[in-house]
């Protein structure tokens, strides 16, 4: 261990260290400031919100904003729990479906050679090169053609087919030793058993990565043009309606933003090391 740290210190000058870490400090502050302010504003009384210089921490900690929020929620036409239910439904089915379906496809792509494999994977890589907005219009036509408009599936199905997840999963699976799969085959296991009982448990870090990437996308969805019925709308839509308005609602807006941000961030804190591990195999040729 000591030996390692010693070699890492090789070629490092003190001046360079100080210079570079002050850069890190300044930008770290720049990065964290709006998030800290969001969190702290959520707990500030209205009169403290507009103080200058803005306080990083509230002087009189209050839950006023959350109370206002719940009052506004109580007045909403559709029970608020319904919005929450919709978001949880979309997010859980979407992420679980994505992890299973993308992994199923990633396994043969990573481990076997068969006709069509190269061209399929090339299409996946190309699809990383354009943003989903490009296909928004035909997607709308297709989704309405299948009759999915105004159902949660309109959000869930396209998300399941997200290509970044498949790409990362395939890259991660590529590092599983072939011998492991070969020996299972010799023992008479079918492809499906190999996949579910050997490969899937080995790629747990990649599950977490796929979950977090899709989770943040689905957790914040507002239903877009696809969901019209009020009782099917996700919570992000409802919270945005509440937060809409001018500066007087700044406290409520902060409370809403705090709720929406704390869930994915907590999830990332808990799974960080596994997620980073996945990305060490993300490389592209």
């Amino acid at each position, binding site marked *: 261990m000591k030996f390692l740290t010693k*070699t890492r210190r*090789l*070629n490092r000058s003190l001046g360079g260290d100080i210079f*570079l870490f002050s850069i*890190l400090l300044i*930008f770290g502050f720049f*990065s964290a400031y*709006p*998030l800290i302010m*969001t969190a702290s504003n959520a707990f500030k009384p209205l009169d403290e919100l507009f103080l*200058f*210089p803005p306080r990083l921490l509230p002087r009189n900690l209050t839950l006023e904003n959350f109370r206002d929020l719940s009052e506004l929620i109580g007045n909403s036409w559709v029970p608020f729990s319904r919005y929450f239910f919709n978001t949880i439904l979309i997010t859980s089915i979407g992420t679980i479906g994505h992890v299973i*379906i993308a992994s*199923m*496809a990633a*396994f*043969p792509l990573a481990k*076997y050679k*068969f*006709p*069509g494999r190269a061209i*399929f994977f090339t*299409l*996946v890589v190309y699809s*990383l*090169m*354009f*943003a989903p*907005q*490009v*296909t*928004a*219009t035909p997607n709308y*036509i*297709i989704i309405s053609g299948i009759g999915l408009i105004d159902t949660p599936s309109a959000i869930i*199905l*396209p998300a*399941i*087919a997200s*290509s970044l997840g498949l790409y990362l999963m395939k890259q991660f699976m590529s590092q599983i030793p072939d011998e492991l799969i070969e020996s299972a085959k010799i023992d008479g296991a079918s*492809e*499906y058993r190999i996949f579910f009982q050997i490969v899937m448990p080995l790629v747990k870090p990649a599950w977490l990565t796929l979950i977090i990437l899709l989770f*943040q996308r689905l*957790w*914040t969805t507002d239903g877009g043009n696809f969901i019209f019925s009020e009782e099917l709308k996700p919570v*992000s839509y409802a919270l945005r309606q509440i937060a809409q308005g001018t*500066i007087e609602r700044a406290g409520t*807006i902060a409370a809403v*933003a705090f709720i*929406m*941000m704390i869930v*994915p*961030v907590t999830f990332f804190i808990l799974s*960080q090391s596994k997620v980073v*591990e996945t*990305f*060490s195999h*993300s*490389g*592209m040729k």
Partner: protein
Amino acid sequence: MESNVNATPILSKKELLWKNIKKSKHYYVLMAPYAILFLTFTIVPVIMSLGISFSYFNLLEPPRFIGLDNYIKLFLEDDVFIIALRNTLILAVVTGPVSYLMAFVFAWLINELGPKLRSFLTLVFYAPSISGNAFLMWLLIFSGDVHGYANAFLIRYGFIDNPLQWLKDPDYMLLVIIIVQLWLSLGVSFLAFIAGLQSVDRTLYEAGAVDGIKNRWQELWFITLPSMKPQLMFGAVMQITTSLAIAAVSMQLVGFPSVQYAGHTIVTHLIDFGTVRYDLGYASAIATVLFLIMISTNLIVRQVLRKVGN
């Protein structure tokens, strides 16, 4: 493998392929659910978009073929599109390379720290990109009245006398979008760089020191960068695609449409025609142009990156 005396000794190409396909049927079964969804929601839409772009289509009547009219209108008559194109390119040229560099430099610096501090700072830099609507905090920072944090700060220290209309004055809109977009931009490529740096073979650094590498810059250039090429390639794809698709930040901060279209981008133009005006043929023409810009930028940058260090 199989030796059947009655069969032709050499299988024709077609037969061989068919045999291969049959042998691989389990793989196709495993891939089927994803492949069906991927084709339906990604590949078919790209082809459809190209087709619809040659038509007039409003969802109510069947599409009517009009040749290149949409494209002609787009480039010769639609002044707003030209503004959108200009804004998109400015935003991409600034946020693309800058965010890429930031992602790498921060990952590189963080990598020098101990494990605890490293994971803390990874969180600090990555959190904005997964924080949902927290970027709306910037509305308060750039608010046009004296209460906006930016204005209050600049007035207090005497840089300006009157509050600036950050979100309404066309002179500042792009600047605001750039700042917020950069703040949001340390996403998956940043994680890829962190991971890539951790997996560089440590013995290379020792060997490098023996071979006469004198400082961290030489180490970075001769050892670290070449060993991380695959991650750098992946990060480039992610940053290029994001930087050409800026829309949400613009719409939520400077409005949709923004004053004098100063924050309008190709994607907001696309949203305008696709979901507000329901001129789907025209929207598809915009989407096709955007698609071509994104793919060609990616391929060009990939070629360039491949050459680096060779």
